[in-house]
């Protein structure tokens, strides 16, 4: 395997990790505030559809972005109303949203475009095009670092850089601001936060809103960055892989980056090599595809340190009367 191949695989891993990273951070904010979010998948799907549909109809990817994020926010809102205001079961609400997204995207898509749930293919200004970082051409010939900068880091769509920036931003918000401290506290012991005179309900809704925006970006990136248009069920389980990555990352922003990059890398390797010949035996591609889940189960089983979920996760907060 030469250096150029490694760069290409890393490049592919970065692209594949981006939607996972955004969804993983969305789950992070939501679960840190004590709300399980099984509905990541549905939000990604809804956002992917509405971004592609609006971009195809208006010709502007930015309007598509707004529509995608808005639809994801709406789904988040429903999840919030069901699980915060009405104190319903968060898992059931999330599962219901997944089904809703899977059905409604096809229903609206068929009525809108008569393409059986697909949107028309996007082209030109209807998609996010790659952004070349400054001096990418100039340093391309510098050994080692040149290709890393100009081939690996440069030439992605803007959403990839947004996703990467979200990692330090999330870390800062969660660990260096008063809002972040309260958000984390709400996920551990909401009663204490309430006693301190801070609204648990408002904090949880805020976390749902943040999760909605991040998930929306993931869907927008899928439909208008990576692909060119919406195809039914195109999220293809990425919301669930993001949940696995969240557990793998032990609910921490920087770990989320590493976990999703690892999962992206595994997928990129599986894409590149159908079977890996290790000399003694051949590693089938299915093993590579299953590896993220195997790793998650290992982490959950308590190997390599404990994975402690936020304590109040999944419990609706009831103010004592």
């Amino acid at each position, binding site marked *: 395997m030469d250096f150029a191949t490694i760069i290409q695989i890393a490049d592919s891993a970065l692209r*594949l990790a981006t939607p996972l990273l955004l969804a993983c951070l969305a789950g992070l904010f939501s679960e840190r505030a004590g709300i399980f979010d099984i509905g990541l998948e549905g939000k990604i799907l809804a956002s992917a559809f509405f971004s592609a549909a609006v971009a195809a109809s208006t010709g502007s990817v930015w309007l598509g972005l707004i529509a995608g994020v808005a639809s994801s926010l709406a789904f988040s809102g429903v999840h919030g109303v069901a699980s915060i205001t009405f104190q319903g079961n968060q898992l059931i609400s999330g599962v219901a949203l997944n089904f809703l997204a899977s059905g409604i995207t096809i229903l609206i898509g068929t009525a809108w475009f*008569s393409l059986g749930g*697909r949107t028309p*293919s996007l082209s030109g200004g209807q998609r996010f095009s790659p952004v070349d970082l400054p001096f990418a051409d100039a340093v391309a010939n510098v050994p080692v670092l040149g290709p890393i900068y100009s081939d690996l880091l440069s030439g992605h769509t803007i959403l990839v850089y947004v996703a990467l920036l979200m990692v330090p931003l999330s870390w800062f918000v969660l660990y260096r601001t008063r809002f972040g401290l309260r958000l984390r506290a709400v996920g551990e012991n909401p009663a204490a936060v309430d006693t301190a005179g801070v609204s648990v309900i408002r904090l949880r809704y805020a976390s749902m809103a943040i999760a909605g925006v991040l998930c929306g970006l993931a869907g927008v990136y899928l439909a208008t960055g990576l692909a*060119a248009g919406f*195809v039914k069920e195109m999220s293809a389980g990425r919301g669930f892989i993001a949940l696995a990555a969240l557990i793998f990352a032990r609910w921490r922003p920087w770990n989320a980056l590493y976990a999703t990059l690892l999962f992206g890398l595994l997928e*990129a390797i599986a894409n590149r090599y159908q079977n890996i010949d290790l000399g003694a035996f051949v590693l089938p591609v299915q093993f590579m*595809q299953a590896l993220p889940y195997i790793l998650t189960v290992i982490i959950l089983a308590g190997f390599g340190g404990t994975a402690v979920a936020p304590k109040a996760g999944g419990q609706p907060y009831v103010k004592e009367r």
Partner: protein
Amino acid sequence: MTLMKSCLGAAATMALSAGAALADPAIIFDLGGKFDKSFNEAGHNGAQKWAEETGKDYLEIEIQSEAQREQALRRFAETGANPVITLGFAMSAPLDEIAPDYPDTTFVTNDGWSDAPNVLNTVFSEHEGSYLAGIVAAMASESDVLGFIGGMDIPLIRKFGCGYAQGVLATKPEAKVISNMTGTTPTAWNDPVKGGELTKAQISQGADVIYAAAGGTGLGVLQTAADEGILSVGVDSNQNHLHPGKVLTSMVKRVDVSVYDAMMKGEDLEPGVRVMDLAHDGVALAMDEHNADLITDEMKAAVEEATAKIIAGEITVHDYTSDDSCPVIDF
């Protein structure tokens, strides 16, 4: 009382005539959906053509989940639809289950296979069509590295890949064929993002013509190939128009012909086996104004020659599903 009798009689007559009118053909689209620009859409086109020519109606359903297969078959058979046309390999097992319960209804498979006595099994020779696609792809390639991207890893898709590789290697023995499957679950048919990534991975390995047999995932393959400036080969329906000048050709399965003929025969349709191979125009390469500039006269001549030889039996294209192995490529 007499009034009552005549009313009942009229109602019974109406019910009978309604029953007779309902002997319309029915078509069941598979999970890919009616407008997948691929396999199911070809079936839809055939049904539409029949409806326009005869002015009659047909029943249809796009199933949304695995569980609906048997339900849809049973419902159409109960309403008296005849024949009931199914699309996709996944209808095989449900047909084994349902078809014996409705001996007066003729069921039609496209890609599937059922041993029930009232089923017409339509078998396409995808390996022969893919062989022709391989010839054209090899002649168009400059790097002599050719890609194949399959959807779900099932023997049927390997049949496409195997025929393609044989066509490539028959034309350019020194060429290299890279093959990738999108996945092992039905989501592999609808993952254009992964299709695009697989395409990029194959391009970085030198591929400059990529053949996609992957349903909705294939749309991602064709899109990425067009973005990156290489050629692609579409499948099932004519996909040349999706990216004019970028799609070299499409390996068309004449599902439309199969559906059209079955509907034309209606209740007189005989069960059995229908082989849609090159000799019966069951598979073909799509040539139209969108790829006219890409197809040279040499390519046309080579395809015509190979077609004639395959029909005459001088060239035998190995069928992967006959012995679950491919002599020229590992999957």
